[in-house]
């Protein structure tokens, strides 16, 4: 395990990182608002414009921004049940993504998928609601890229709770064995729903587990986007150069509940959580370093809000799928059943 010292980043890059984080947070806040808008006072998970489970990523923006800064739309990214920050940072178009979350025919999956099932061929983005099971498909994307002799890579993101699933182990071993261009990223937000890390994981750092596969393992301890950026930069470069996989664990923060509606009664440190919000912290850091003015920050917020408002308006204006099409898309070809 090693900790990488952040390289010096250009002012533009630093502001870009913050801009991405702000866009993500703005999106998540908007989804949260829309999610509750027509569910209260008697919360009903199945009601409203945005029904179903909703896992938001506030607090984990540094991971998405720091990792995805190194990727292009040709690289693949697989995410989890908590996918919005990664999708946004990877460049998934906001309009069809939002429409999917609203269950509309204009959505990424024509409303069939929903918030845990965002698939975007344009950016090779996908996600899965089954813990750790998104890792293995990422191997296959990396395999295809490798076979074609490109330097494209795949990034597979998962939570720290997921690192105790069998799929995690099998995927890391196979990626290492076949020297696949994959970067594994573990978002350690201390919690798997209500189970704290210490009651799920026998070791304090998943970076330790990299040794079980003979690959480099790095833990970024402080939810700093620049530290993530540095660690991911090295790992992405290694993968592109044919140096095989890397495991990066980032100690990040689940700012809100596991899903919306989670009262977090099990969480002792609840009162102090918001003090660790990475966005004000990074803003302060950049302001202190004279990289960012208040006006620039406000402009970031305005730009983000515009994009998000546009996407939400697009979603709301889009048609719902036609119930008569309920049997479509099971198969690409041939009659159904």
């Amino acid at each position: 395990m090693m900790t990488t010292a952040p390289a010096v980043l250009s002012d533009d890059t630093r502001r870009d990182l913050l801009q991405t984080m702000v866009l993500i947070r703005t999106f998540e806040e908007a989804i949260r608002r829309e999610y509750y808008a027509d569910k209260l006072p008697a919360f009903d998970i199945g009601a409203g414009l945005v029904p179903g489970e909703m896992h938001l990523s506030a607090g984990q923006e540094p991971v998405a921004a720091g990792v995805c800064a190194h990727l292009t739309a040709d690289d693949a990214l697989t995410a989890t049940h908590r996918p919005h920050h990664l999708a946004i940072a990877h460049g998934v178009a906001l309009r069809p993504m939002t429409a999917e979350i609203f269950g509309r025919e204009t959505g990424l999956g024509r409303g069939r998928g929903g918030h845990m099932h965002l698939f975007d061929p344009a950016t090779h983005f996908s996600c899965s609601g089954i813990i750790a099971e998104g890792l293995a498909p990422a191997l296959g994307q990396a395999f295809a890229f490798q076979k074609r002799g490109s330097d494209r890579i795949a990034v597979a993101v998962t939570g720290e709770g997921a690192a105790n699933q069998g799929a995690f182990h099998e995927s890391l071993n196979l990626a290492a064995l076949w020297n696949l261009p994959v970067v594994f990223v573990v978002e350690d937000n201390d919690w798997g729903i209500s189970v704290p890390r210490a009651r799920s994981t026998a070791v304090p750092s998943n970076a330790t587990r990299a040794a079980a596969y003979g690959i480099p393992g790095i833990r970024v301890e402080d939810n700093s986007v620049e530290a993530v950026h540095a660690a991911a930069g090295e790992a992405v470069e290694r993968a592109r150069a044919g140096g095989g996989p890397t495991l990066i664990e980032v100690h990040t923060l689940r700012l809100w509940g596991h899903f919306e509606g989670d009262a977090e009664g099990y969480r002792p440190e609840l009162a102090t959580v918001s003090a660790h919000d990475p966005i004000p912290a990074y803003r302060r850091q950049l302001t202190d370093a004279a990289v960012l003015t208040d006006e620039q920050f406000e402009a970031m917020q305005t730009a983000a809000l515009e994009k998000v408002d546009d996407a939400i308006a697009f979603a709301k204006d889009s048609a719902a799928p036609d119930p008569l099409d309920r049997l479509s898309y099971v198969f690409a070809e041939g009659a159904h059943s």
Partner: protein
Amino acid sequence: MTTTVHDRAILLPVEPDAGKRKLSTAKAIQEAIGQRMERDDSVFVMGEDVGPYGGIFSSTTGLIDRFGPERILDTPISETAFIGLGIGAAVEGMRPVVELMFADFFGVCMDQIYNHMAKIHFESGGNVRVPMVLMMAAGGGYSDGAQHSQCLWGTFAHLPGMKVVVPSNPYDAKGLMAAAIDSDDPVIYIFHKGVMGLGWMAKNPRSIGAVPEEEYAVPIGKARVAREGVDVTIVTISLSVHHSLDVAEKLAGEGIDVEVIDLRSLVPLDREAIVRSVGKTGRLIVVDEDYQSFGLSGEVIAAVVERDPGLLKRVSRVCVPDVPIPYARELEHAVLPTPARIEAAVREAMAT
């Protein structure tokens, strides 16, 4: 590998009159587990978020306060490991109640379930017992998407060696859980989220009902005639029982008299009860929230025809038409066995 001998609770297979204390299905399950835990220290509960959280669908609320973390164990997200752990503990005479959070997650741990939990008793020629309950949430209707809305009971029922119990109401939920814990066989206990009576999900009033405080068991394998009728038989299970009863009550006003059979378990399947009812009505509708083909609905139809191909004048199915459960509400409610679809099927059956 000794097995603790349990006093059998009295079997009370018939739901007592209403007007008594009412509980939600979730609370009824908690009560059954708690009562068994109190008098048998070989019973313990294990699963993801079953401790302080109380189970994502409230199957274990409050148990950790009474029994502590030594007997109500939160696990890592390692279903193969902890279900396997349950199997080994059962083999050594404990009576684990293990929760798989969603039935949809069976794919990460099915080998333990169907090749071990379900087969060890047989492979050992009856010498090793696996008295374990594996409970799990199932079902859709609240836009949770294709990986969190499945029923899948047909998948478990197809594979031999496990009983498959699916209660529809609080009374049965308590009694069947008691019977499942008492059973010397492995029991899959599936509760539909929509029958749990949760505060945060739309619910049918039948999710809350009269439940005796004392211990009792509902025998596994006996269907219940949820409503008597002479015109059409609906054979169904779980939340679809509620919908079917609602439809039956509505149509009663129009003089259509629907009999509703609540199977309560797939394994054993109460073939007698099905045949008896269809023998009376001649019209069979199978309502099932699981996928239509190669599952419960085909088996119910076959059970009748096998007994007597002349019994059936008319048959139809109201199931999920072999598509993944769609996220968008408009689509999801077009594939689920909603009251509207059930009603249409009854009317069609009566028209012929």
